[in-house]
């Protein structure tokens, strides 16, 4: 047995994570508008400026916004170590990320290097502030568990992804001669395979058993999976340094990565099948969709390795990873975290009676509608590289998703404010 004591202030004010969450749906709207007002089908060419711009709206404006906001809350709650100087960190990350995530897609779409050259230093500032504060928080954490390890590795992967991203953006804007294909592969690998996947893995170790009432992840898997994924990512990066990489080496390293990612998805689905309360829950369905999306992304990625002349397979794998896996998980987590935050801050603020039930803060019907809408977005996106009309469906569905999520978050914020006003409290 181990005695633990903790006496530091834990939870940041609710306004800290909520500003990130509230800004995120705007970028879904922006991505949808970019996909609507383009000359041809952007999914048919993965290098098209419209697809590049829409992808960065989703990865930086939507996903990073949610992940940076959630980390402000996750670090104190799951590893017991709040982010250092949370209000200062928020101002150093939120505004630069917001403006950088607007300028970068605008630079791609309008072919304006000046906008890209404004965007990447802002983005660098936002992520350097976030990475520094997170690493200090991790170093001071009293918890020494698999979640802390996975978060630490995800932050390290993010650091590499950001350096490469800034280099690529600067090179793109100035027309410098760089090995763009290799740098972009390494950037995507660290950003999605490292930062996104490892963070989701680490947070799932806590969130899945806690909120979905499943058994815990097996100890051997929880302690070994994140380091194994990180090592495979590093091996993949090392092979990129070779002058000419043997194709079999790419198959081995990428095969290992997708095998490990599928292990995580399969284990999570298996745990969810053993949950103690078998009630229908939209957030659980978002999680399941995400895990199935990850496994399908793995299948298409492996198929793409064996049929390298077909671009579409790689595009479908990327769509399944981004929209199917990562975005589904973000929606599922948001619909769990936001009501809990509202409840917790009202409860902690001394509201003894009239704190709304967790399920009443964002109506369940809205979550189910969003789930069906997101399934439609994903289905359309899978076919979009072959079928031009499907690209229009993706744009329309993303627009509706942004509106729906924004409305759901506004409902949660207004519940919080109304309850505080009723009891005469101050919002932090």
């Amino acid at each position, binding site marked *: *047995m*181990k*005695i*633990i*004591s*903790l*006496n530091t*202030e*834990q*939870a940041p004010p609710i306004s800290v994570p909520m500003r990130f969450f509230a800004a995120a749906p705007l970028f879904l709207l922006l991505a949808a508008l970019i996909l609507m007002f383009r000359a041809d089908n952007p999914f048919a060419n993965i290098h098209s400026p419209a697809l590049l711009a829409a992808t960065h709206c989703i990865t930086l404006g939507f996903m990073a916004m949610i992940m940076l906001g959630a980390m402000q809350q996750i670090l*104190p*709650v*799951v590893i*017991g170590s709040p982010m250092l100087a949370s209000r200062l960190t928020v101002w150093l990350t939120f505004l630069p990320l917001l403006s950088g995530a607007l300028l970068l897609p605008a630079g791609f779409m309008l072919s304006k290097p000046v906008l890209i050259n404004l965007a990447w230093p802002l983005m660098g500032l936002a992520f350097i502030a976030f990475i520094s504060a997170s690493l200090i928080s991790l170093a001071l954490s009293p*918890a020494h568990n698999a979640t802390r390890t996975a978060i630490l590795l995800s932050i390290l992967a993010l650091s590499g992804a950001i350096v490469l991203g800034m280099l690529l953006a600067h090179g793109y804007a100035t027309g410098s001669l760089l090995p763009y294909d290799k740098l972009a592969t390494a950037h995507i690998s660290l950003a999605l395979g490292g930062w996104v996947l490892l963070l989701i893995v680490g947070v799932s170790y*806590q969130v899945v*058993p*806690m*909120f979905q*009432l499943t058994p*815990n992840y097996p100890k051997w898997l929880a302690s070994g999976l994140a380091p194994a994924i990180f090592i495979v990512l590093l091996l993949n990066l090392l092979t990129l340094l070779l002058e000419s990489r043997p194709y079999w080496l790419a198959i081995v390293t990428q095969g290992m990565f997708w095998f490990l990612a599928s292990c995580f998805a399969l284990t999570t689905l298996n745990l969810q099948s053993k949950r*103690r*309360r078998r009630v229908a829950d939209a957030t659980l369905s978002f999680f399941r969709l995400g895990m199935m999306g990850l496994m399908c992304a793995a299948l298409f990625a492996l198929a793409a390795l064996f049929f390298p002349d077909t671009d579409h397979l790689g595009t479908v794998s990327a769509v399944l990873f981004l929209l199917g896996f990562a975005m589904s998980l973000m929606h599922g987590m948001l619909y769990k975290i936001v009501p*809990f935050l509202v*409840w*917790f801050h009202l*409860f*902690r603020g001394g509201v003894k009676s009239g704190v709304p039930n*967790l399920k009443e803060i964002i109506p369940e019907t809205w979550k189910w509608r969003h789930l069906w809408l997101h399934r439609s977005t994903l289905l359309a996106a899978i076919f979009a590289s072959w079928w031009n009309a499907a690209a229009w469906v993706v744009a329309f569905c993303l627009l509706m998703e942004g509106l729906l999520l924004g409305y759901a978050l506004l409902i949660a914020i207004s519940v919080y404010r109304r309850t505080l006003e009723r009891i005469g409290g101050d919002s932090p």
Partner: protein
Amino acid sequence: MCANMAHELDVRGLPPPEPLEHIMCALQTLPVDAYLQVHIDREPYPLYDVLRDGGFDWQTIAQSDGSFSIRISRSV
């Protein structure tokens, strides 16, 4: 609603925020010189803020099965 008025409270297997609700409910009726022993699945970091605000001291012990035992008493 208070689930357990005794000085021992087991909230393992309950989803958030039920453990927190049950613990705070039990603490409302805790005699001044008594303590509450809580058994919980995960270390409840958010609870510590609420305990500190409410004038309670606590000691957390990690159990070998991965759960936690928390002894909560009023600050002296």
